């Protein structure tokens, strides 16, 4: 976004990279003041994120108190192993993006780019696992061929040349009035799925926004935008990514580990 700005581009005369010649926007007195301002801004934004999810957590608490049986039953359909794997993936990505800030500060351009790429890959892996092994079978009853859970069920049809297999009676675990699972044990199970899809769906949307932001960092890192003199964007996107991770740390036990 700022790359086209002449004042902000690589210094043509000396060939010095952007992060060395970076000047703050003209209404700031210094680079440090701008850095502090952006950081306070991001922390305030994170406060809004916490409050956004607070609404979902309050809803979760109230409905779990009202319908504990439905939540217990519903939770049994979630595989804690996928949740656990995704937790590890996100924790690892938090570590790589935290390291990338250090890389920028130490001017380790190659490591910076590598860490950003790993973070994006982890984020995509998280969403991929969620969609393929969790949302898809539960919503529709279709499993991907290499899903280990498939060995427990009889599939009746397959599609896409054997890539997808359909298990009758497995799908239909959908939110609210879309719920169509024939073996539900509790009348309030649709409520459990509503909470599950709303919470994880809004969280996954945040992960995808993170993919966009970190890809943007990667593109800028390739143009040598970040270094000891200027790494504001890496720092604040890192903060954002940590909150996305943190919210999952709360969602995982609340959704997957109920007994």
């Amino acid at each position, binding site marked *: 976004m700022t790359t086209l700005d002449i004042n902000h581009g690589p210094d043509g005369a000396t060939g010095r990279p952007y992060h060395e010649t970076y000047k703050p*926007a*003209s*209404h*700031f*007195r210094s680079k440090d*003041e701008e850095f*502090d*301002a*952006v950081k*306070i*801004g991001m922390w*305030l*934004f994170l*406060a*809004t*994120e916490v*409050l*956004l*999810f*607070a*609404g*979902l957590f*309050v*809803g979760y608490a*109230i*409905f779990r108190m*009202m*319908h504990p049986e*439905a939540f217990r039953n519903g939770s049994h359909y979630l595989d804690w192993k996928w949740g656990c794997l995704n937790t590890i993936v996100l924790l690892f990505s938090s570590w790589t993006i935290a390291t990338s800030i250090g890389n920028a500060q130490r001017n380790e351009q190659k490591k910076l780019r590598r860490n950003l790429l790993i973070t994006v890959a982890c984020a995509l892996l998280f969403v991929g696992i969620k969609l393929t092994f969790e949302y898809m079978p539960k919503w529709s009853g279709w499993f991907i061929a290499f899903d280990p859970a498939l060995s427990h069920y009889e599939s009746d049809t397959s599609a896409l040349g054997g890539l997808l297999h359909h298990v009758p009676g497995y799908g239909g675990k959908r*939110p*609210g*009035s*879309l719920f169509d699972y024939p073996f539900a044990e509790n*009348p*309030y199970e*649709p*409520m459990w799925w*509503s*909470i599950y*899809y*709303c919470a994880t769906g*809004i969280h996954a949307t945040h992960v995808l926004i993170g993919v966009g932001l970190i890809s943007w960092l990667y593109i800028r890192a390739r143009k040598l935008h970040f270094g000891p003199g200027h790494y504001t964007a890496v720092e604040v996107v890192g903060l954002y990514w940590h909150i996305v991770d943190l919210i999952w740390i709360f969602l995982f036990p609340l959704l997957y580990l109920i007994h």
Partner: protein
Amino acid sequence: MTTLHGEIPGAHGHEHHDGSYLERKGGMVSTIIDWATTIDHKKIGVMYLVAVLTMFFIGGVAAMLIRYELFEPVRIQATGDNVGQISGTALANLFGQKDISVAKADNIYNRVMTLHGAVMVFMFIVPGIPASLGNFLLPLMLGAKDVAFPRLNLASWYVYVFGSIFGILAIVMGGVDTGWTFYTPYSSSHADPGHWRVVFMILAAFILGFSSIFTGLNFIVTVHKLRAPGLGWFDLPLFVWAIYSTSIIQVLATPVIGITLLLLVFERLFHVGIFDPALGGDPVLFQHFFWFYSHPVVYVMILPGMGIISETIAVHSRKQIFGYKAIAFSSISIAAISFLVWGHHLFVSEGELVATIFSALTFLVAIPTAVKVFNWIGTLYKGSIQINTPMLYTLFFLFTFSIGGLTGLPLGALATDLHLHDSYFVVAHFHYVMMGGTVIAFLAGIHHWWPKIFGRMYNERWAMIACVLVFIGFNTTFFTQFFLGTRGMPRRYASYPDQYQLLHQISSIGAAILLIGFLLHLAVFIGSLFAGKKAPANPWGGLTFEWEADSPPTTHNFHHEPLATHGPYAFDDVVPPHCDPKDYPIADPLPAGSKRH
């Protein structure tokens, strides 16, 4: 506050053409592009001012339609052949629908009422003062060149317009009849064929929330990081304290309505059941979520107004504000307490103990509010009061806002609230606070800073006449509604028993006077823009930084970076900038460079 004679290092690397920010850059098209892509907080403030006043006009038209319908109740009169003759459906007749059923007439009324509420709350009064006057004045008052994130500021304006378009779309498609509170299951039921209209209206409120968060976040960071050298927290004008407190509420409360409205859209589209008892959900949960945002937001509406009054009352009575710190901290404490009182909107649906606690917490808000009012009155005492439009509106505010505040107490007390809730008493109370408070303070602020914003004076005599009309019209419209409420007239109905008709008619006549007052104001403003006298830099003798800038300010706000050398209201100690010392005699001038509050 004085100006340092010396260039700020690094700020002006090259020579700027430092003309007025309103100066046109080329032809019509390039001027429009210049405004549409500007990141200048002053232009964005003016764009917000135009946008919110447009919404005020739309909401105001709806208000007039409501009063037009209520002039006569919807009646079914038995005629000779035993067929009911419907009368009093003025609104339906206006839309060309004659001989319709009572239900249909009520439906039209419900939509106009929802339109009035939703437009006034979400599109006018919440963004109103902070986004327009706040945007324009905050950096000027801090001695800064802009807000911390100018591009985010422009984005907030576009998000606001985008959200408003959704709202207007819902209205054009036929309107929404849920009331501005979107209570479930009314707002979530699928029976209404106007499915998408409700979704659009909810999305409008959701999108407008982002604009509110962007503005609030921007202002908090600006106050923290961009104060001029020497400008400590207790040298800030009280308007800045008010805007700062407002911004905290905006940032902390708006995300909660965000998730609530998002869940409501899911409820509406997929019937997820979170607010639907048939699927195990809870409609009261919606009310808790809704008021957890919407009560604090009442203080988003009023706090900036209180900030304006703190400025106008000090400047136009030429006196050091009484109890500076008390007013500053009362803004912060109102922001803090505002998060603890939402339960008073649900007194009848919650348990006795909870209701008692919320009632007690609600009374707490009265303390910082009263602290402000008493300090304002203390400021007037022995001041040199100038009666002009901003001051007239300020006195008007003290009168109507006190009525609004005091009538809140019987609504906060459980025993009286059981009788008064959902009656016209609530409508009257709310309008005394929101209109008698916020709108009146907004008008005081617009007149106070009009010369600064547009560089032109307005016609004082006609503006004062308009002010008196607004005062008379406002009180006639809403004071009657206290009586309607105590006598049992419920809110939100198109029809009523005959015994209420006289009071309703007085109220409607008041609304007409109010309309004339506002139209006169509009004429005064237009007259000022085209034929107003050129405004001096400091027409009122104010001491805060914005009066050091030119009228209208230059693109970069100040010729030199300002330096705070005295308090914002030290009228006894310093000659105001750009003013003749003969007009502002100082009894005991301070030696240069010393600081006194």
